[in-house]
Structure formats: structure tokens, C-alpha cells
């Protein structure tokens, strides 16, 4: 274990290329009825380069949706901001007041696609009226006619009929609603699009259409970067450059999509990959195994490694003190063991 390979959390050195999103030590928490603070995002740091896509994966309840919301910098109860910074294109959005954030950042710099796009649109408002309301906040200089032209043009470009604009949400199918939501979210060409499980409620065909749409947005430069959140790791392999795995409010590993799927280092990523069917060559023969146990209660997280209780490789020292981030090339993972030891273990297990 070489010492300089071990860096403490928060000491991430700045990336050489231009970061469009830079999150440092972000902590956000839910205030419960009993006035307890539950940290669903607990000290998350990562950066995203311009033009890149990042996937965030993890079990349900690991904090990925909360992280997606937290990235917007706009908090309302019961979610609260704890500490940390969110830099979007060089602006620390946590230093802005609510009005500035709402007018200058939301929808313009960073946009959001909610988990339940089915209900994301006001049922008694025509799509175009909603777009008009949104434009009133960001582009008050535009007339209704201009807004219509912009919206119709964008919808056409994205293979959506401009007729949709004159519809009420209930007149659209599920897949159509999802694509409409994506088109609305990106109408102002935000630099970053945060998509929280945009495909989880859709059938496979609609899923594919949505993925294609997201790629199209990137290709046509309507958005610069994409943060894609899902519980389906294999999906990320096809969509994103990098993958980040979250566990109990922390990021346990980050690497390129290929590394994460075929050569994961952190025991949790390894187990997560073992628990799902991956149709890729060399992976589909794997036996499926479930991860025993359940994630820890975020109200009362254990000290040391949060995964230790469910980890088959865990040892006494795993459960003490802070677990440092380890950097291997351009990847990072949070475990006390070095890559060689881990790989040795994984190899033995496969035999």
C-alpha cells in the first residue's frame, strides 16, 4: 500500500480539462418529523468534464435520486442543504440567492428530468402553456408567437409532432410524455441535464427511444453533459462514459463504464454486477448472486466502511475510522484494500 496513492476525502486535485460540473463535499439531508437529520447525500465529491456523460448507479435507497435533486441546488422541505459546493460552469451555485438561482441556473444551466415523468406535467395545462410559463421566467423578451416557433422547431428536430404542444398531458402516451418532458427540460439548451431514472417506468421499446433521444440531444449539442441516474448498470454501459456507484449516501467507486462493468474494484460494485444479467460477451455466462443483507439505515450509519456488514471480504479494520479514497489511474474507489489484493480475491472466488 503506497501512501501517496491514498488521499483523504475532499482533497481531490482539480482535473486538467474543463469541468462543467464540479461538486465538492456535498452533504444534503432530510429533516424527519422527529427533527432528526438523515444524510442521504453524505460528502459526495465528483467532477464532470464538458461533453462527457456520467452514470450514477446504486441500490434503491442509496441516495441517487437525492443526489440528482441536490445537484440542482434548489432545496425545499424536507430536503435541506448541509454543506459543500456545486460549481456549474465556474459558478458556485450555492453562493447565489434563491431568486438568482431560479432565474439564471434552473432550466438554463442545469435541467432536470424527474423519475416519474408520467406525472411531471400539470394535468390541466396544455404543453405549450407550460412552456410559455417557463419561458416567462427565463426569456421574458419573447412573444407567445416566438415561444411557439422555438418549441415547435425543437419538437420537430426531436421527432416529436408539434401537435403535442396543443395537447393536454393526459392525451399523450407514457413514452410520449417522457420524451415531451425531456424536450421541455432541454428547450433552453442547458449545459447539464440530470436525468433521474428516465427509463424506469417505460417498456423496452420506449426505453430505447428515450436513450436515443438523450444521445441526440448530446450529438446536436443541445446539452453539453448528461448525468444519468439508474439502478440498471448495464443500461449505463451503453449510455455513459463514466459510471459512479453510490452506496448509503457515499460514492464508493468511479471509473469508465468499461472498467466498472468488466473490471470493478470495490467489492460492492463487484457484487452489484454479479446480481444482474449483463448481455455483454464474457459476462452473460456469470451466475447471478444476490447481495446478502440490506443497506444500513441512513439515520444511523456504521463507522468505517458502510458496506462492511454485507461485504464477504470485510475485516476488523474495515469497521473503524474513515475509509480513504484510493486513486488508480483515473479511477477512484473507497476501500482499504489495494487493487491487487481485491483482484486476487475475486479470482479465487471465481474458481
Amino acid at each position: 500500500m503506497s501512501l501517496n496513492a491514498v488521499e483523504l476525502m475532499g482533497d481531490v486535485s482539480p482535473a486538467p480539462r474543463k469541468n462543467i460540473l464540479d461538486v465538492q463535499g456535498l452533504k444534503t439531508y432530510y429533516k424527519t418529523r422527529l427533527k432528526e437529520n438523515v444524510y442521504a447525500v453524505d460528502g459526495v465529491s465528483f467532477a464532470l468534464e464538458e461533453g462527457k456523460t456520467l452514470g450514477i448507479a446504486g441500490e434503491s435507497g442509496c441516495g441517487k435520486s437525492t443526489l440528482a435533486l441536490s445537484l440542482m441546488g434548489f432545496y425545499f422541505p424536507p430536503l435541506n442543504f448541509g454543506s459543500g459546493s456545486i460549481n456549474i460552469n465556474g459558478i458556485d451555485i450555492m453562493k447565489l440567492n434563491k431568486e438568482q438561482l431560479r432565474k439564471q441556473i434552473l432550466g438554463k444551466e442545469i435541467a432536470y428530468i424527474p423519475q416519474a415523468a408520467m406525472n411531471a406535467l400539470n394535468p390541466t395545462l396544455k404543453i405549450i402553456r407550460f412552456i410559455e410559463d417557463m419561458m416567462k421566467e427565463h426569456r421574458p423578451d419573447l412573444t407567445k408567437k416566438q415561444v411557439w416557433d422555438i418549441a415547435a422547431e425543437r419538437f420537430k428536430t426531436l421527432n416529436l409532432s408539434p401537435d403535442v404542444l396543443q395537447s393536454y398531458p393526459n392525451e399523450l402516451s407514457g413514452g410520449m410524455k417522457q420524451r415531451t418532458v425531456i424536450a421541455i427540460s432541454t428547450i433552453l439548451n442547458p449545459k447539464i441535464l440530470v436525468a433521474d431514472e428516465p427509463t424506469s417506468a417505460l417498456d423496452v421499446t420506449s426505453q430505447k427511444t428515450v436513450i436515443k433521444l438523450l444521445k441526440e440531444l448530446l450529438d446536436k449539442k443541445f446539452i453539453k453533459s448528461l448525468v444519468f441516474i439508474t439502478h440498471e448498470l448495464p443500461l449505463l454501459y451503453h449510455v455513459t462514459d463514466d459510471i459512479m456507484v453510490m452506496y448509503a449516501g457515499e460514492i464508493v467507486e468511479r471509473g469508465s463504464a468499461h472498467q466498472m462493468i468488466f473490471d470493478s474494484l470495490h467489492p460492492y460494485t463487484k457484487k452489484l454486477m454479479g446480481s444482474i444479467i449483463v448481455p455483454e460477451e464474457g459476462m452473460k455466462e456469470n451466475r447471478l448472486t444476490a447481495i446478502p443483507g440490506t443497506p444500513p439505515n441512513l439515520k444511523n450509519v456504521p463507522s468505517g466502511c458502510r458496506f462492511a456488514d454485507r461485504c464477504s471480504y470485510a475485516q476488523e479494520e474495515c469497521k473503524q475510522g474513515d475509509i480513504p479514497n484510493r486513486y488508480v489511474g483515473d479511477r477512484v474507489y473507497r476501500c482499504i484494500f489495494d487493487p491487487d489484493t481485491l483482484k486476487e480475491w475475486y479470482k479465487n472466488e471465481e474458481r
Partner: protein
Amino acid sequence: MNAYTKYFIRKSGWYLLTLLIALILNFMLPRLIEGNPVSTIASQVSQGMTDSDSIKRVYDNFMKEFGVDKPLVVQFGIYLKNLVSGDLGTSFGLYPRKVSNILASAVPWTVGLQLPAILVGWILGNVLGAVAAYRKGVFDKVLFPVALFVNSIPFFTLAIIMLYLLAITFKWFPMGGGYDYQMVPHFSLDFILSVIRHHTLPFLSIVLVTIGGQAIGMREMSIYELNSDYVLYSKLLGIRDSRVARYVFKNAMLPQITGLALSIGTMVGGSLICEIVFSYPGIGTWLFTAIRQLDYPLISGCTLLIALTVLLANFTIEIIYGIVDPRIKAAQMEEN
């Protein structure tokens, strides 16, 4: 013909059928009550008469005049025939006053009492409910139980308590009636003031109960809408809070509009008990009197008026709803 016109026609048919059934019930039910209205009236008219023949003649005369000597089916036929020409019959109890004349004199009192009370109660209740849902905190914690309490008090109990406290104990308000009984209705300041003084207690009793019910309903609906996904999404697109609040309250209002239309529609029959408690000269008091005197035409007249207004209100709501809420319109057109 488009789907919506078809829906409209089909619904109208159903409402006409309902009205017909209501007519039959309105006619039959009073006549099924035990007792003979004519003998009561005849005995009053023939008071002091000793000649049993002339008493019999008075009785027969009234039997004929009221048409109660014929079989029920024939009576119903006559009733329907008169109804078509707008004749609701002659009151037994207030012979020879026309039922339509009595109703016409009673409706303004009922509407004058109910309409402002319902509107004021509805508006206040909805505003309070919406504010409670939006503000939460202390305001909500105080308002909710109070509204629940007021809403749970039976209408007549509240009326009687108010009558006892404010009219009998403190003597701030008159005990009943529409105006001072020694006055003759005419257009003067004195008369109007008297009407207002008599109006206050029944008005307040209706307003209070309405506020309670509306506030609870609006609060629940608003909380539900505030937690819906479109609120989060709209806010995250940078849409200002006041506009999102408008979305929420428009959507939360929809069921409340039904409530308002229904209470306006059922207004004529909605305050029967309140009117009886305060002896207010509206439909309720008349219906009460008519039932005691077995005044068939007046009972039928009152209930027909109530049935008509309820049906009309329901029908209007259904049509308006289709216009306001696209989801309902879609569902309505699918019914075909």
C-alpha cells in the same frame, strides 16, 4: 355529430328520465301518508254548523275541488296535465292560494338566505384551507381542528345554540321570522334593517358550517396537489412559486367547484332545518307546514322545486367540469 354532442344528448336523456321518476315520487309519497287532509279543512270551515247535511256538502265540495275523490292514477294524470300548463295546483291548507304563488313568495327568502351564506362560506373556507395547506405551521395546526369541530356540529345544533345564546340570552338578534311581524313588507330603510337583523343568525349558522367543510376539503386537496410531481418539476425548471401555487390551487379547486355548484343547486332544499329553527319564511318552513297539514299540492310543489334545482345543478356541473378539466372531458367522451 362529435363525441361530445353525443355525450350531451345522452346525459340530457338520463336527466329527463330522472326527473320523471322524481315527479312520480313527488306525487305519490305525500299521498301515502296516513290521514285525510279534507276532513281537517272541512271541519275548520264548517265550524259552528250543526246541520250534518251541509257539513257533508262542504266536505264533498272540498273533495271535488281538490280532486281527491278520484283514483290516484287519474289524479296523477290531472297533476301532469296541469303541470305542463305551469299550474302546480291550489294549496289545501291556505285555500284558495295557488301553490305557485306560495313558492314564488318563499323562494326569494330561501335564496336570499342561502346564496350569500354559501358563497361567503365557500370563499372563506377555500381561502383558509389553501392558506393552511401552503403555510403549514401554527396556522394549520389551529385552523384544522377548529374547522373539523365546526364541521362536525350538526347544522340544527349550531343553529339552536346560536339562537339560545345570541337571541334569547343576550337578545342581540330577533328569535325568528324574516322581519318584524308588525311590519308590512315595503321598501324602506326600517324594513331593510329589520330584514338584515333577522337574516344575521341563520346566515351565520350556515356560513360557519360551510367554512368548516370547505376548509377541510380544500386543505386536503391542496396538500395532495402540493406533493404531486408536477410541482417539483415546475419549480426545478425555474417557474416562480406564485405561478406553481396557481397551478396547485386551480387543480385543488376542481372538486371544490363541484361542492359549490352542488350546494347552490341544493340551496332551495338545503336550509330546510335552518329555516325551521329560525322560522324563516322560506321553502323549508313552508314544506314543514305543508307536511303537518297534509297539503299534498304544496308538498309536491316544494319537492318538485327542490328536485328540479338539484338535477339542474348536477347537469350544469357535469358540463362545466368537462370544459374545465380535460381529463374529465376525455372520460366523458369515452362513455359513448
